[in-house]
């Protein structure tokens, strides 16, 4: 149970700023995902939290104590990497017990706690085996057990699921989530997969080019993205330029009403967006934010049909019911519900 | 603190690496250099004139050493490369025994084998002959070639070759355009090893060559325990030059390619 604060955390490599004045607070017991494309600075941040990398400036605080001068091995921030998981020269039991052995814990006590941990990650009786005898998913679980056994103050996972196949990844996500809840360890985990971040995290820190873009709960990234780039990262490219005046937005397709709770942008030039799954296809022009659109393309996706539309020169994506049928080039009516419209800054 | 340790270590490495070699340059140009002068009192190029004179037999030794080392290296490649490939990439019966047979000369002293082979060569009239000396040098060279190259082949795998074959490359084209470029740096290091092993041989050449085949180590040998330090140093430098040249050519591969040196971890 550790409360983590990153204060103006900055790291430069030569002339390149990998992490730029990052400010972040992680409540104790929370599971936070650092999300972003590769090279965005998320792993660099993680390494600064462990102490493997010195910040150029700024501070890392655990329970309000500065950690910058505390060496990695005394920090209690345990890292699980995506590859080079297990020490190849040791058995599974020795791997899991490594941290305890470093502390000089008694042999029998190590054995007991190793068995307990292997039980927790659902690998009972694996202690005498060698690392190479295990599958990728099993190795990943052992690496997790090895980190958990020392009761870390902060658990740091660097793309822990990147090398696993789809099924295993789902299984591991659930395991990580349930163990994290059970032990309520403050956990940070790095990923470039937004779906994974959404499923696992209490909060997500989205980073681009070393800068924190948005730090919020998962649903906010869908419903309240902070910029076009954030929206794009969460697979929403539906944009329409307009001008906000009070509770209305003027667009080339007419005036749209917006919900009072969703009016973060000031009056003036804005971009209007509605997530593909929130756009409604309506048979007849009804009242309330209905606009005309031309069908460009439709693709049957099994659970739904993805329709590509032209809205006043902007290409929009819409998820319609699977049975939706229309001719390409046909003009149809779509509704942009006021409660789903979100305004983004233009730049 | 760590930086200080590092720089002290680095300075020591340079000093220790050069300490036995650099003074030989000075010695090779000295005529009189008595204790306790730190530099020669009389300089001269006499030692080098001696080296170049036929009576010193340095030229003859150099030519023999070089041609033997080249022949041995080429033979080691011809014989060792296929063997290394088979051991790295093929499964066949008796493979473990073959691996063991080929590694034994590296870790078991060759003294009995050398004496034994001498007896055989006497009967086959291979003593005092160029080819006899080459053959005896092959004993330690082939295992090194196989050891290094099998780990290079294992590391390189066959996927790229298979891809080239499906793209229509014949066996020669595959070797020329895919395999050879892939293993080249490893092969360079392995060849450096065989060249240098042959280049440095003394007692085997002495025994099998019987004093008829004069190589550089045999020319240098009496000078080391002698008193003419100047001549010793000059010959020594002639002996060292090609070796250092070889290192310069291969040093990049030596430090960087872990598969090459990794072979030594598998003995």
């Amino acid at each position, binding site marked *: 149970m550790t409360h983590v604060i990153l204060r103006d955390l900055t790291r430069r490599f030569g002339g390149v700023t990998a992490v730029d004045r990052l400010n972040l607070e992680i409540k104790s017991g929370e599971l936070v995902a650092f999300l972003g494309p590769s090279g965005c600075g998320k792993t660099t941040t993680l390494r600064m939290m462990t102490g493997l990398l010195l910040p150029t400036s700024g501070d890392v605080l655990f329970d309000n104590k500065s950690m910058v001068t505390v060496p990695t091995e005394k920090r209690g921030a345990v890292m699980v990497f995506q590859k080079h998981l297990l020490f190849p020269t040791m058995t599974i039991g020795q791997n899991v017990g490594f941290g305890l052995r470093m502390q000089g814990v008694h042999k029998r006590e190590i054995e007991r706690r190793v068995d307990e941990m292997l039980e927790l990650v659902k690998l009972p009786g694996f202690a005498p085996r060698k690392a190479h005898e295990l599958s990728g998913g099993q190795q990943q679980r052992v690496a997790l057990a090895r980190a958990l056994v020392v009761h870390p103050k902060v658990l740091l996972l660097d793309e822990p699921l990147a090398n696993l196949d789809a099924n295993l990844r789902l299984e591991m996500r659930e395991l990580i989530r349930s163990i994290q809840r059970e032990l309520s360890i403050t956990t940070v985990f790095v990923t470039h997969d937004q779906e994974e971040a959404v499923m696992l995290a209490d909060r997500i820190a989205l980073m681009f080019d070393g800068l924190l873009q948005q730090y919020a709960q998962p649903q906010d990234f869908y419903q309240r993205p902070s910029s076009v780039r954030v929206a794009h990262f969460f697979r929403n490219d539906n944009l329409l330029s307009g001008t906000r005046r009070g509770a209305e937005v003027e667009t080339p397709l007419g005036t749209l009403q917006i919900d009072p709770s969703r009016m973060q942008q000031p009056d003036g030039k804005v971009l209007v967006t509605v997530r593909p799954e929130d756009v409604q296809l309506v048979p007849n022009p009804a009242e309330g934010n209905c606009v005309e659109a031309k069908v460009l393309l439709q693709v049957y996706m099994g659970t739904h049909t993805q329709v590509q539309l032209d809205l006043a020169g902007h290409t929009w994506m819409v998820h319609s019911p699977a049975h939706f049928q229309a001719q390409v080039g046909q003009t149809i009516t779509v509704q942009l519900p006021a409660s789903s419209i979100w305004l983004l800054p233009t730049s | 603190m760590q930086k200080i340790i590092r720089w002290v270590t680095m300075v020591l490495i340079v000093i220790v690496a050069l300490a036995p070699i650099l003074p030989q340059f000075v010695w090779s140009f000295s005529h009189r250099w008595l204790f306790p002068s730190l530099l020669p009192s009389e300089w001269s190029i006499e030692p080098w004139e001696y080296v170049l004179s036929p009576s010193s037999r340095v030229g003859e030794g150099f030519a023999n050493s070089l041609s033997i080392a080249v022949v041995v290296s080429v033979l080691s490649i011809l014989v060792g490369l296929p063997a290394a490939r088979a051991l790295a990439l093929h499964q066949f019966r008796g493979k473990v025994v073959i691996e063991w047979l080929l590694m034994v000369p590296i870790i078991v*002293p060759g003294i*009995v084998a050398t004496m*034994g082979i001498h007896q055989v060569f006497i009967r086959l009239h291979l003593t005092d002959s160029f080819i006899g000396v080459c053959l005896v040098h092959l*004993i330690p060279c082939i295992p090194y070639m196989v050891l290094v190259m099998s780990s290079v082949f294992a590391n390189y795998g066959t996927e790229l070759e298979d891809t080239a074959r499906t793209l229509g490359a014949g066996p020669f084209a595959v070797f020329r355009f895919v395999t050879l470029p892939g293993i080249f740096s490893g092969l360079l290091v392995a060849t450096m090893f065989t060249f240098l092993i042959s280049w440095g041989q003394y*007692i085997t050449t002495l025994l099998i060559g019987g004093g008829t085949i004069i190589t550089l*180590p045999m020319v*240098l040998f009496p000078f*080391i325990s002698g008193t003419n330090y100047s001549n010793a140093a000059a010959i020594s430098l002639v002996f060292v030059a090609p*070796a250092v040249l070889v290192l310069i050519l291969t040093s990049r591969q*030596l430090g960087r390619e872990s598969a090459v040196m990794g072979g030594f971890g598998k003995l």
Partner: protein
Amino acid sequence: MRWLSLMEKLRAPLMVLPAVALVVLLFFGGLVVGFSQSLGYFPAIGSFDLTLRYYGDVLTDNTFFESLWQTFRLALLSTVMSSVLAIALALVLRNTFKGSRFFTFMFQLSIPIPHLVAAAGIVLLVSQSGILARGAYALGLIDAPRNFPVMVFDRPGTAIQLTYLWKEVPFIGIVVLAILQGVGPQYEEIARTLGANAWQRFRYVLLPLILPGVLSTSIIVFAYVFASYEIPLLLGVRHPTTLPVLAFQSYQDPDLSLRPQAMAMSIILTLIAIVLLIVYKRLARYAVNS
């Protein structure tokens, strides 16, 4: 079709055949001839009867045991010292820093240099009138060559050891360096976050990883030093000299009847080397795993 599958089957054995044939004929052939001669089978001097007499001669000779001890001591010391130094230097050199490529090159410099040249260089350096003695005189530490410590032709074999160290440290070192670079820093980073200090990271993470490489190369070094001839002959004391020197001297004696004894001595030397290698490997494994 049948022909093709036969070719497929024979391909690998055919590929290894030339190498195996040469090594077996030359090395193992020589071994067999040498072994039979040590048992008294020596047609050239008209001796055909098998006997253990020559082994007896060797094993009752005090000189043999003195030489054996000298050989063993030299080989063991140079192997252990080279390994330890090589590991330490590789640990420093594996980091990339300004000039690390140059220093790695300097570190490798002695690898291609023949042992004989190394020996010549060491003599010029450490003999009583060598560079070091002159330096000591210039600094006022000694006032005559005879006051400088004897390092050549001395009983401990200082110059011999220095020659081997200078030659073998880089050899073991580059293998360790290659392993370390292949391993990368991640295992240590994991160990660090799990609370391992610098010594623990070396002892429990790095050492087990580099051990196979260190073992193999130090075995090569031990085998080489144990059986080498020219360095102890040039830089060592006459009594006790090393076994290979003793054996080759008997072998090259104009009196051919000394040859079976030389062979017996060489066979014993080889057997001892093999036994020591096995013991060494076991011990090292045990020491690291415990």
